């Protein structure tokens, strides 16, 4: 639906208008978007991989706490990060500020996937390298890192998609990316065709990146599960100090500062009696929308992922890329596309929660597809063949073999969509039923009048609401023993 909206509007663009867009705006937007995405990718890789390696390869006091500290920033929306940091310091602005904020907000994706992969690596490979006299650094670059490549490629894809589609942080820090330009074109100048033209360029750009990512991990399918989970060396003395100063400084900027800010202002709000029944209504609305969207995305992603994981044809890859379009398009465009489509073909549904849930599902479907496909890739085909030779029909093999084996992937699919849907702003703003305010909407409304402090309870509630989801994913990420 959103894609059709973009195409039909872009088709109305005359050649001269295209030309004007190309020469006047696109080169700069392209440069900004790519620079931002590259820096954030590099930043999240450095922070994510180093922290993941520390908790996966070293044993130290407070390791499990550290894991939580590295994942929790997922619950803080980029616009909250940006709002807090811009109000704390005037030096957070522009490109550097956006890289800083988006790195803090999205390194947990890299951390999660890198850690899961590190935990799943077999001990024997590193041991073999060690016994053949390979020095530690080389062991990391020549054995550990290459084995991490599929996980890192997936993580970077998620980070780049988030960065390119981000609206909250770039609009506050005013970095002219495609998403922001499209939003201004549409919302400020009421120029849908120009916006659609820009969207089309953005889609092509992002699909290129996604295809590159697939290309890089094309031949990298590791079916083997770790026979023996890797060893964690106990850390002591100076090493312990280093570990905690790295993890501590990351946690300080990514978690302690925003959380501290939220606690201070929530205390103030509680003292003023600002947390009333209305607030609990926002919380309930947020939960309802995010849960429904996460379930819908989980179910809808299954056929796509199954199809691609087993068939691996051009058609299946196309289906996969098409499913990604929702994420590649900026939120406001998805929202407007859904709005137009629903009004045209399903009028009576308009204004109901269903429309919002549908838009959220479309937007975040790629996350669940990605997670489920990654899980399917790890299922050795011989298991299914064995099941079939023992007389299991398709439904039975799905129920008894495939689904149980991809439980971790299903959990990840649910959690990623749930957390993103909790925080989602542009589509929610446009498509929610009248008067149906979510926590994210409240944060936006208060900050639009420069009264973000009033929204501290809502921001804190988002973090609290994410806790069960994060617990689920951390539990699923643990290596299965025995």
């Amino acid at each position, binding site marked *: 639906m959103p894609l059709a909206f973009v195409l039909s509007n872009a088709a109305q663009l005359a050649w001269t208008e295209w030309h004007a867009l190309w020469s006047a705006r696109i080169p700069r937007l392209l440069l900004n978007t790519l620079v931002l995405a590259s820096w954030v990718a590099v930043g999240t890789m450095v922070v994510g991989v180093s922290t993941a390696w520390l908790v996966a390869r070293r044993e130290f006091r407070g390791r499990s706490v550290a894991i939580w500290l590295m994942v929790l920033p997922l619950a803080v929306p980029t616009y909250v990060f940006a709002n807090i940091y811009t109000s704390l310091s*005037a030096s957070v*602005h522009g490109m550097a500020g956006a890289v800083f904020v988006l790195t803090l907000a999205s390194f947990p994706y890299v951390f999660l996937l890198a850690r899961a992969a590190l935990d799943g690596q077999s001990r024997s490979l590193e041991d073999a390298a060690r016994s053949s006299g390979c020095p530690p650094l080389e062991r990391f670059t020549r054995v550990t890192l290459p084995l991490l490549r599929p996980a890192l490629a997936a993580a970077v894809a998620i980070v780049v998609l988030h960065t390119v589609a981000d609206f909250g942080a770039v609009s506050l820090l005013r970095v002219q990316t495609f998403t922001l330009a499209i939003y201004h074109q549409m919302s*400020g100048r009421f120029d849908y065709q120009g916006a659609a033209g820009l969207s089309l360029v953005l889609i092509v750009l992002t699909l290129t990146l996604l295809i590159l990512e697939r290309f890089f991990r094309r031949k990298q399918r590791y079916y083997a599960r770790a026979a023996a989970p890797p060893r964690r060396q106990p850390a002591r003395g100076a090493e312990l100090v280093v570990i905690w100063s790295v993890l501590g400084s990351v946690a300080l900027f990514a978690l302690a500062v925003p959380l501290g800010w939220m606690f201070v202002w929530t205390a103030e709000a509680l003292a003023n009696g600002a947390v009333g029944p209305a607030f609990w209504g926002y919380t309930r609305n947020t939960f309802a929308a995010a849960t429904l969207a996460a379930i819908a995305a989980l179910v809808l992603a299954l056929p796509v992922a199954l199809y691609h994981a087993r068939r691996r044809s051009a058609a299946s890859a196309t289906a996969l890329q098409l499913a990604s379009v929702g994420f590649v398009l900026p939120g406001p465009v998805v929202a407007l596309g859904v709005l137009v489509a629903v009004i045209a073909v399903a009028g009576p549904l308009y204004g109901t929660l269903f429309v919002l849930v549908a838009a959220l599902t479309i937007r975040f479907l790629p996350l669940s597809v990605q997670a489920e496909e990654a899980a399917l890739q790890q299922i050795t085909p011989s298991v299914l063949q064995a099941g079939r030779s023992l007389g299991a029909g398709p439904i039975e093999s799905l129920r008894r073999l495939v689904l149980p084996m991809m439980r971790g992937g299903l959990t990840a699919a649910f959690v990623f969509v749930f957390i993103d849907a909790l925080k989602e702003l542009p589509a929610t703003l446009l498509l929610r039923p009248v008067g149906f305010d979510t926590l994210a909407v409240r944060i936006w409304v208060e900050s639009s009048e420069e009264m973000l402090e009033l929204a501290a309870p809502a921001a804190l509630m988002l973090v609290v609401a994410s806790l069960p989801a994060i617990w689920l994913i951390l539990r699923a990420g643990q290596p299965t023993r025995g």
Partner: protein
Amino acid sequence: MRIIIITLMKRLILLAVILFAVAAAWAIAQERTLTPAEPLVIYTGRSDQFVRPLAERFTAQSGIPVTLHAGSATELLNKLRVEGARTSADLYLSNDAGTLQIGEDEGLFAQLPLLLTQTVPANYRGRDNTWVGLSARARVLVVNTSADGVDALDSVFDIADPKWAGKLGVTTSANESFVAGLSVYQALLGHDRAERWLRGLRENAGREVYAKHGAIVADVAAGRRTVGLVNHYYIFRHLNQHPDAPIRVIVPDQGDDQIGVAWNVAGIAISRHARNKEAAEAFVAFVLSDEGQRMFADANAEYPTRAGVAADERLPDPDAIKVADLSLAELAARRDAAIELIDKVGMP
């Protein structure tokens, strides 16, 4: 293997379709049961906490419940346009005359009864009388009272002078008030003058533009900046919390040969497809009443637009202020030019 997958997929798709059908049916059923007493629906681009006390008072007086649907003014206007006859909005409220006039030009609003709006000066209303301004704000300078040289400041064009380099606070040019102000200057003084001004502003602000007006006022009060370009109410918001802050308002461009202060209004319109036009008109009448005007303006230390309603007494006397001579209905038409200028100069 292939057959397994294909059968699986068919069943999964069927399952998904059924799930969605159930969800859709449930959603429709919910909507049907959710409409007991038709509330008046207001799309508000003005923060709903400024509007809520007013809405509650209206409900108490008239017995008509009000639902506030908050969002960004431009986005809500987009929504109104795309929704067409399907809209549930009865009223549209915006903080910016420019978006209201675009709504009028797009034919999204219904005529307002002249009897209702004639108490408001004509340049605070739409050309076809489909929207009416409710409260006004001024684009002013805030200065630190203990800094040197600020007494000589009497025009927004002074702040482009190189002597304020590093001492000036302005918001990013993405800010709607910034764009509206620039539109006024460009309309009255011409393209070249506006461009020179903007270039000077860019030099003086350096790369450190602010995301928020409130931060500019706070930094001027703390002495980190000497002068800032802001909407007047941010200064009073700061003074509410810090009554002793060393800051002062300068209402710029008041001389005989100067253009007057740039002005913008928040206003209201009735949706063309309003289901509840009578109640909507009753609401407009209420916000234009003495009580409604004061509540609406005082919520944010703004000036009531209706002649004869007194403003908050801490504000500079509105009768003594010379306002830039540009009908607010013109703002919308000037907006694109202002944005193009911003892009050309590369104002951060």
